[in-house]
């Protein structure tokens, strides 16, 4: 029994950052729950963690949550996949070919910096509700981080390595495949972290505008019927997924490129 506190403090010592972060989150929800002991509670406009948990359990048990998530996952991953396949090569060529880079840079910057979600209604008119429209919205938001990061990665490449390949008889194709692509991979992963967040926005906005299923649709539907607890259950689920994806990518970054961190 006497060793119990030291085991606990040892655990806290080793995971201090995680413990601090977790404690803050727990405190936030506790405060949220507690504030309605003094503030009058009206379930039409506001909710509290206990009700959200009940709503979440309800959605999980009925299977609605998983159905909506599965529907939203399709345009999310299709759009992201398209963004990588198109964005990375475009960015790499922009980085390698100086004139192409200068020509496309202003255009790309305009699209990247502007709130493309404003175009969502137009995209829905063009491509319809449902999968194509949502995929296009996700793609158009997610592609630019890949373009810019791939471009920056190529520009930052160690030119000595390019010379090594050329001096050993490598052609331009070899420079792309053997030097540029491996050099930009860390940049692409970093871009993916940004793109994932934008892709989530894309899915939600797409489903807000016009959809009959999906997690974004569920959020608006629950809001329309004043089911604030279930609306928050959906929002929190999306948040957790966003964190899981971003942290997963962060972890992949550290394990996949030991030469960048192991020095």
């Amino acid at each position, binding site marked *: 029994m006497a060793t119990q506190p030291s085991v606990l403090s040892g655990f806290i010592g080793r995971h201090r950052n995680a413990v601090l972060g977790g404690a803050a989150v727990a405190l936030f929800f506790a405060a949220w729950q507690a504030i309605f002991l003094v503030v009058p509670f009206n379930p039409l406009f506001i909710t509290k963690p206990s009700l959200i948990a009940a709503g979440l359990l309800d959605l999980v048990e009925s299977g609605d949550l998983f159905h909506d998530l599965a529907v939203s996952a399709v345009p999310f991953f299709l759009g992201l996949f398209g963004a990588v396949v198109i964005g990375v090569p475009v960015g790499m060529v922009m980085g390698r070919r100086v004139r192409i880079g200068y020509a496309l840079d202003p255009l790309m910057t305009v699209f990247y910096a502007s709130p493309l979600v404003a175009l969502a209604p137009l995209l829905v008119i063009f491509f319809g509700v449902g999968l194509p429209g949502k995929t296009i919205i996700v793609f158009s938001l997610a592609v630019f981080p890949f373009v810019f990061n791939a471009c920056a990665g190529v520009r930052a490449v160690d030119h000595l390595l390019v010379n*090594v390949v050329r001096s*050993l008889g490598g052609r331009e194709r070899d420079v792309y495949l*053997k030097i540029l692509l491996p050099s930009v991979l860390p940049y692409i992963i970093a871009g993916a972290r940004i793109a994932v967040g934008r892709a989530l926005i894309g899915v939600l906005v797409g489903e807000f505008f016009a959809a009959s299923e999906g997690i974004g649709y569920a959020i608006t539907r629950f809001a329309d019927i004043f089911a604030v607890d279930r609306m928050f259950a959906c929002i929190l689920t999306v948040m957790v997924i966003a964190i899981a994806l971003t942290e997963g990518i962060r972890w992949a970054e550290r394990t996949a490129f030991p030469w960048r961190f192991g020095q």
Partner: protein
Amino acid sequence: MAAYIQARNVNLSFRPANRTPVRALDGFDIEVQEGEFLSIVGPSGCGKSTFLNVVLGLLKPDSGEVLIHGNKIAGPGSDRAMVFQEFGLLPWRTVQHNIELGLELKRAPSAKRGAIAERLIGLVGLTGFESHYPHELSGGMKQRVGLARALATDPDVLLMDEPFAALDAQTRDLMQTELLRIWREARKTVLFVTHQIDEAIYLSDRVMVMSKRPGHAKKAFTIALPRPREYEMRVTPKFNELKLEIWNALKDEIAV
């Protein structure tokens, strides 16, 4: 006998955008015999490395020409390979796969690549480090990989651009002796660029002193020291005599 490498009146200027051109080489002439170990010493920025890059085929001279075996150099070729000062190892490749790079670019079959890499890993003394990544190696070991990679495509000419300048003094001394041992076994024509007169004398059959920029060949010294060379040779009167002679030719070119 005609020289193996012949540089005739090589002129080259760099033209950075919006700035005045810099003349790097000005009527550079040199002749290297087959199997010879020739060092080029000169002040910083005199165009030593530029000349190596011309021989390598990465830079084209404005006028003049460089011939190897009577053929004009038009670009990189498998008869030449470079060992770079900053190693130039691909950080995402293991020692073995770094060494195989040139063979891969020549589309050599995988079994042949493996066999050549294995032999060279033994030659440069890296047995047991095949699967290590560059960031796990010391500077001296990195340059052993750089040397093995250059030897892998079996070039006739080995170009070495201050290969030991990034190493500490003791490692550099060891690597010089290692290089002589490897050179004895591999028998290549070597063009070696360095700042260090000691290093140049210890390694070379001949030492060429370059002028300050725009660089041209100032004076060549034959190093009539017997081979194989031992470390003790560096403290003999003959060695120091040569060192003084070369220093006297070099010092006027150095601006402080």
